[in-house]
């Protein structure tokens, strides 16, 4: 009974450790190589400290008694156990995975991890293809604007930047709300939402910066000035500064409340997005009137639309690609940070923790 409980616990933990949680990790195949094969034929299990601790804890519970500091793992193997009394959310993971059954978990995850890597490469290839086609159509296919000349073609990468910014700031808002909603109930989901919030805010800031720079270049050629403090430009600059401040807060604030503060700040920061969007409708601005969704007669010639669609698709796909990479790395860093914190809590002797107080 003791042995079967231990094996079950190892299965649960290895699914979590190798699987990177929920299978989001594109490098899961690499991760699988970090530890040795935990199959039931007696191979040594090494790797995640937290995983061991958790496995051992579950095994101890299954056995109905406390664990030893060291002991036998699978038949013929010696492993070092780290005493661990885990958090409730890890217990939830374990419970869910036990309910799902763990016997098939690891092989299924390995295939999934490889698929994710392939999927990401395919996505990048398609994205680069779409961007290349967008470049070709924008510069060499669509007609030149009669009034502005070739400088109007800036529009074909200026507009996608704003679209990308709007999309990723909206994702940031949703993730921030989700984080606040579930942070006390589902820590795993909360951390994922938080990681996606960071990733989307960063790429949103990048798109916003590109929009400001390319708009300024266009303004210099058409208006004769680099910048003017009209409602659209000013509200956009403020929006960029708000999200830069959001990222700085995340970078330099410490402590457990940082993520909550950042989520609240993101919600308030997003209030500027509709202000930016409607600024050219509510006030008279030097910025041109809305091209899409504006007054009757607004818009561009249909012969120019292919350049808009290709570039819009290409840059949004690029944003999704980069944000997905950033999300994975942020989530990994958070998990590693938590593992380290748990390890420190677990291995520190009680006498040392209380010493000097």
């Amino acid at each position: 009974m003791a042995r079967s409980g231990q094996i079950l616990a190892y299965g649960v933990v290895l699914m979590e450790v190798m699987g990177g949680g929920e299978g989001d990790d594109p490098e899961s195949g690499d991760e699988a190589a970090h530890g040795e094969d935990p199959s039931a034929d007696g191979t040594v299990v090494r790797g995640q400290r937290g995983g061991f601790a958790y496995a051992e804890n579950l095994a101890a519970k299954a056995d109905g008694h406390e664990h030893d500091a060291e002991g036998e793992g699978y038949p013929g193997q010696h492993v070092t156990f780290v005493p661990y009394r885990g958090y409730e959310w890890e217990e939830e993971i374990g419970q869910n995975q036990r309910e799902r059954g763990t016997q098939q978990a690891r092989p299924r995850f390995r295939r999934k991890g490889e698929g994710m890597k392939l999927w990401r490469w395919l996505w990048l290839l398609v994205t680069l293809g779409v961007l290349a086609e967008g470049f070709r159509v924008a510069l060499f296919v669509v007609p030149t604007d009669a009034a502005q000349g070739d400088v109007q073609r800036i529009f074909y990468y200026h507009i996608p930047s704003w679209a990308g910014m709007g999309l990723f700031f909206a994702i940031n808002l949703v993730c921030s709300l989700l984080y606040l909603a579930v942070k006390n109930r589902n820590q795993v989901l909360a951390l994922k939402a938080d990681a996606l919030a960071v990733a989307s805010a960063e790429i949103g800031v990048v798109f916003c910066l590109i929009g400001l720079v390319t708009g300024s270049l266009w303004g210099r050629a058409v208006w004769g000035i680099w910048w003017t403090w009209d409602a659209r430009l000013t509200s956009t600059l403020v929006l960029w500064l708000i999200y830069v401040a959001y990222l700085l807060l995340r970078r330099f604030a410490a402590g457990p409340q940082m993520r909550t503060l950042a989520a609240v700040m993101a919600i308030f920061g997003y209030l500027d997005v509709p202000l930016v969007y409607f600024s050219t409708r509510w006030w008279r601005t030097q910025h041109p009137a809305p091209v899409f969704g504006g007054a009757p007669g607004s818009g561009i010639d249909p012969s120019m639309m292919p350049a808009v669609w290709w570039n819009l698709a290409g840059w949004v796909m690029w944003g999704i690609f980069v944000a997905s990479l950033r999300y994975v790395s942020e989530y990994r860093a958070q998990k590693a940070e938590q593992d380290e914190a748990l390890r420190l809590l677990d291995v520190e002797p009680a006498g040392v923790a209380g010493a000097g107080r």
Partner: protein
Amino acid sequence: MDMGHRHLILGYAATLLIHLVYLSYVAVKWRAAKRAER
């Protein structure tokens, strides 16, 4: 080359440069996360 063409090219260059700089940052974070994980 007139100002329109120059600014069009500058805009493309700035767009690519900013994206590449950010991509480098993402790569650094990716590696750091993998190191921390190990």
